């Protein structure tokens, strides 16, 4: 019974998204434009970067931009989806709870909608990246892109549940720009993030992405675990906050 209700709520959520053609267009156009334009515009000037495991590699800014820009675009789009999918959950799902749904069921359905949006953005970003840049190992590269989408989608959802929409939007965009655009970005400085960058959610996935981009062998086990830990922690926090918010209003 519970599974059927969750499936029904999920179906309604996905149908609601499909009724918004502009959203689907933007979720395709935004990452496609940002990734393709960034790579196409960048000069092929040489740049030395450090890989997980301690190796260094001489690459070009153009290749490097190809390697990391998908992550930034994914995080921006998934983060904003997270903010507003959860804002609408708080507005609409209280009625479902009053009608007899358990808060956890409605939250699972909303998380599935967020996952669908994130999957679309990840797929578009990777497809566009593949047109310009071929990673040395696709598996860690794809895993990093998915991790970034899920982590920032969850972070956006958490902010959307806790803050008003303007503050959540500002904070989401600022976090992505700072974490992925600057602190983790190997295009700047000596090509490796500073030591304190490990404290931010983008560290694990970005290092995993750089490893997949430039190395056939896998050296980013610790970074993968760190990225997964952020995802699990943020996912659990989103679930708990939303269940509590919906439950409090539904009781």
């Amino acid at each position, binding site marked *: 019974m519970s599974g059927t209700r969750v499936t029904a709520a999920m179906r309604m959520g996905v149908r609601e998204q499909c009724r918004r053609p502009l959203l689907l267009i933007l979720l395709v156009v935004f990452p496609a434009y940002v990734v393709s334009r960034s790579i196409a515009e960048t*000069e092929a000037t040489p740049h030395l970067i450090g890989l997980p495991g301690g190796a260094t590699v001489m690459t070009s800014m153009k290749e490097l931009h190809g390697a990391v820009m998908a992550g930034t675009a994914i995080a921006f789009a998934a983060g904003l*989806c997270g903010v*507003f999918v959860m804002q609408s959950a708080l507005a609409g799902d209280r009625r479902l709870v009053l009608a007899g749904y358990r808060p956890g069921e409605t939250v699972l359905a909303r998380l599935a909608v967020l996952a669908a949006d994130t999957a679309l953005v990840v797929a578009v970003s990777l497809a566009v990246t593949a047109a310009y840049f071929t990673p040395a190992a696709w598996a860690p590269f794809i895993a990093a892109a998915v991790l970034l989408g899920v982590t920032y989608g969850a972070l956006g959802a958490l902010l959307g549940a806790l803050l008003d929409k303007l*503050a959540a939007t500002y904070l989401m965009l600022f976090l992505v720009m700072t974490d992925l655009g600057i602190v983790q970005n190997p295009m700047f400085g000596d090509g490796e993030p500073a030591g304190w960058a490990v404290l931010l959610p983008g560290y694990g996935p970005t290092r995993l992405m750089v490893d997949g981009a430039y190395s056939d062998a896998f050296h980013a086990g610790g970074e993968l675990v760190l990225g997964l830990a952020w995802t699990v922690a943020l996912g659990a926090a989103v679930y708990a906050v939303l269940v509590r918010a919906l439950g409090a209003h539904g009781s």
Partner: protein
Amino acid sequence: MSAFAAVGGSFVREHLRTRLTLALLVAIPVFFVLIFASVLGEFAKALGGTMSGNGATSAISAGWAAAFLCGALAFFQVSSSRGADRRLAAAGLGAARVASARIAAAVALGIVVSAVAFVTLWARSGIAHPWHAAAAILAFALIYVGVGALVGALIAAPLEGSLLVVLVFAVDAFSGPSMTSSGGILAHGPTRDATNLLIAAGTGEPSPGGDWLAVGAAVLLALAVAFGAFWLAARSRS
């Protein structure tokens, strides 16, 4: 006039009621100028742009902070206030005065954000032509009030609208003449001339009169567009 001032003041308070929003309106320009300026020169060089030097990169990061914050603010002002503004207009204030009060609130918040960005810029690296820089940063803010309000007039949904504002910002910021050498139609974004003014102010170069006229025209057009967007949102549908 007093009703207009009261409504305009309440529109400002509407956004500042959330303490975190107020804190972010102050903190984000500071962080933009302090953090982003350090890497913008490297980024512009990677894209084949001409911007280099501490003065130019610090100055442009201040402009972008003002633009980004005011664009999102204006979008949410239009998209989330339709119902309330229609009721205010129908209650006797009129759509034009509601729109004017909204513009006044957006401009007031734009001035606050621009002032924070300007002071941070001055404290961080000094400014060769401070008054030019102040005017250019405010121009960034007001131009994006127009962009955000226009998006808000066309799109009510917050996710679609905020994505579009970010997309316009990304196209405009990274296609400008200082960031890329490729030119093309995208290099003629809404803040192109304000960018030239701001970089000149940061590096101590003189600014041609044509740039000032172009920026003035862009600001007037943006405010006219914003007024139209707020008026459309407030007018009665009957």
